[in-house]
């Protein structure tokens, strides 16, 4: 019944972590995604892009993961950016007004670029 696969991409030099999810994020599979997210947060990695191109369906359990962490993540100058949602998922995202809370981008690159400015700032700060 495990119809989800999650892969984690942590680019060596950038602070941005990319989670690529394929499948369905529902009650049964959401914990797996949450585990991955938790592991990132534990290691103080707060700039997260979630690539949802391969996700057909997200239930409240899935949205809940993003909604429940977004405040903490933002408090630490990070963000959870959702990228390349398919139409079905994006329609729900809009319908549920999650666009007020979570930012979405057409592609992973756009999402990464959106981090770009603040990411560099962060780097400079930490270097300085």
């Amino acid at each position: 019944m495990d119809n989800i696969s999650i892969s984690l991409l942590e680019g060596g030099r950038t602070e941005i972590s990319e989670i690529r999810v394929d499948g369905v994020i529902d009650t049964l599979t959401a914990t797996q995604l949450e585990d991955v997210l938790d592991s990132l947060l534990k290691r103080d990695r707060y700039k997260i892009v979630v690539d949802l191109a391969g996700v057909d369906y997200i239930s409240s359990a899935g949205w809940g993961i993003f909604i429940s962490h977004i405040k903490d993540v933002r408090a630490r100058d990070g963000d959870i950016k959702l990228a390349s949602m398919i139409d079905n998922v994006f329609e729900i995202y809009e319908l549920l007004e999650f666009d007020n809370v979570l930012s979405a981008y057409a592609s992973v690159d756009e999402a990464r670029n959106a981090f770009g400015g603040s990411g560099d700032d962060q780097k400079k700060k930490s270097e300085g």
Partner: protein
Amino acid sequence: MFRRPVKEINAEFLAEEKYLDSIQRTARESCIAASMSRKDTASVLLAIEEGATNIIRHAYLYEKGIIRLRIVIYKKLIVFSLIDSGRSFQPSGTGALDLEQLVESGRKGGLGFYMIQKIMDSVEYISTASFNELRMIKHISAPSPIGHTFLRRLFTLRVKFSVWTFIIMCVIIGASIYYFDYRASKLMYTHKHETVQALSKTIADQAAGYFINRRSDVEFDELIVSYMRANPELKLIVLTDSANIIRAHSDDIRNIRRPYRVPEQVSADTIGVPQPVTTEFEKFSYLVTPIRAGERLLGKVHTTYSTAGIYFRLTESRRSIFLLTVVLVVFGILGIYLLSNYFVSPILNITRRVRRFTSGEMETELPLTGAEEFFEISKAFNQMMTRLSQDQRNVVEREKLAKEIEVASEIQKTLLPRKLPEVPHLEIDALYRAASVIGGDLYDIFKISEERYCLAVADVSGKGVPASLVMSILRTVLQIQAAEETSAKKLLTRVDGYLSQNIPTGMFITIFLVIYDAETSRISLVSAGHTPMLFYDASKKAVDKVNPKGLPLGVPLAEGRSFEESLEELVVKLNHEDMFLLFTDGITEARGRDNSQFGMERLTAFFESYLNEHAAEPVSNLSEALVNQLDDFTGFAKAADDVTFVVARCRRCVKEPVSSESDIQVKKLREKEH
């Protein structure tokens, strides 16, 4: 509140997360059936999953339960109800939940309900003592195709019929008008041309004479002027000689003796055929007629004439034809409408009835009127409906029966001991095999005290739930009373005293009760009208029937008779390897292929021969062999009655002096038998 539902779907699911898929599938089918847009369907499915997940988690707390999904499709909305009988939980936030709060709190709880509210147009949570219902309403934004098909069904036939009839009518009218108009105008034009041709010929003939006689120009002029006057449709007559010099010109006398030039659109060499000439204002025909004397060409008559008169006449007649056509078409449409009504209304009538029928009004009958075809349809429909409602009644009956069997077998299952108790020095096996319909057989083996055990086989008259319930009472009473009473006779009397007041009149129970004393190895036996017990005496290697007297339980007694007095209690001392078999008449009355009964003799013979051959084998082998023997006999025909038996063998290896008392008892038993 709403209009009549178009469709209602009810489904039940186990409240487990793995069934969420099935729930969604059911909902999806309904959404598609109601032609909800793809986008709405996706979100509705999400909401349904959230609702069901909430039930599994919060109402049932992951315990076992049932989620009922009811979907009612109306023309413009769908009502989804998720019903559970678990804990009532007020969805957190009671509706006023907003996203900000969720984000602020960092909690996930309540998000599901937030989503349901966002997705659905209206959400209600109804909680009663016996069930909770989450009722969600979603409007169908796209025009419902059910409405469409409904309209299509209602009007297509009529519209199709009308349109096609109208088209056919128009084509026929148009074609005939065109044909007659074409013919009429052709005729008129031909006639005109012929007239002018004849006229021109006359002029030419006269002119030929004039040429030969060398008449003066004035005479030529008079000739054509006289013809012009007589024929107002003639516009111009020009006479030319063989050198194409004008000899007479009806318009302008000054043209005489000048060469003639024909109009651009015509050719002077086209002889005898009318040629069209179009000026800015009018259409003419132009005819060239030769003037001959024998073979010699003397000149030509150029006649220009108007066909406008024909045109006007045609237009006039066309106008009246058009008016006539309009009148015809109007009447035609009216006729089509009436005709379509005539054809469609019986169909609509049938449709209406069928719809009423499908909405549960079984008693609808179609009136047997109308054309032969509709008469047939109505008749067929009525037959179908009668059959259907009959079938439905049968189905309801069958379901009731099936439910009853289910309940009875549920009870039955609880009646039989789950595990046979360990009885000292007694090797026991028991079997209960239900017939297709749940019967009223029972066996029970239980411990009364350390030494005393009770073994019983009983048969309740009747089958089904009532019999099962009586069984369950019997078993309970037996177990409770067994602790109180030491003798089998007294125990059964107590049981009867209780049961006779508590079982329905007309129902009775036969029971064979054995109380085994492990210390003394004695069994005391009573039988309340039950089939005899078979007793195998190992020392004699012989089987005896043991049949203590007694009336069945629950039988109304004659004045002065008591149940207790009717009972005879026997005590038998068991020796090593002695065996006894308690059973119900399901065995002896089993029917063979030739419809004969298995019978007591066959059973006794089997028991004896088997034990003599397989003395050392465990008793479970005996039960197996007995069942096989029975199945061989019946040829695996479906048993009409339950098969129940208890078999026990004494395994007392300790040799003890055979008491004379028991010998006497057994002897006494045998005497009674014979």
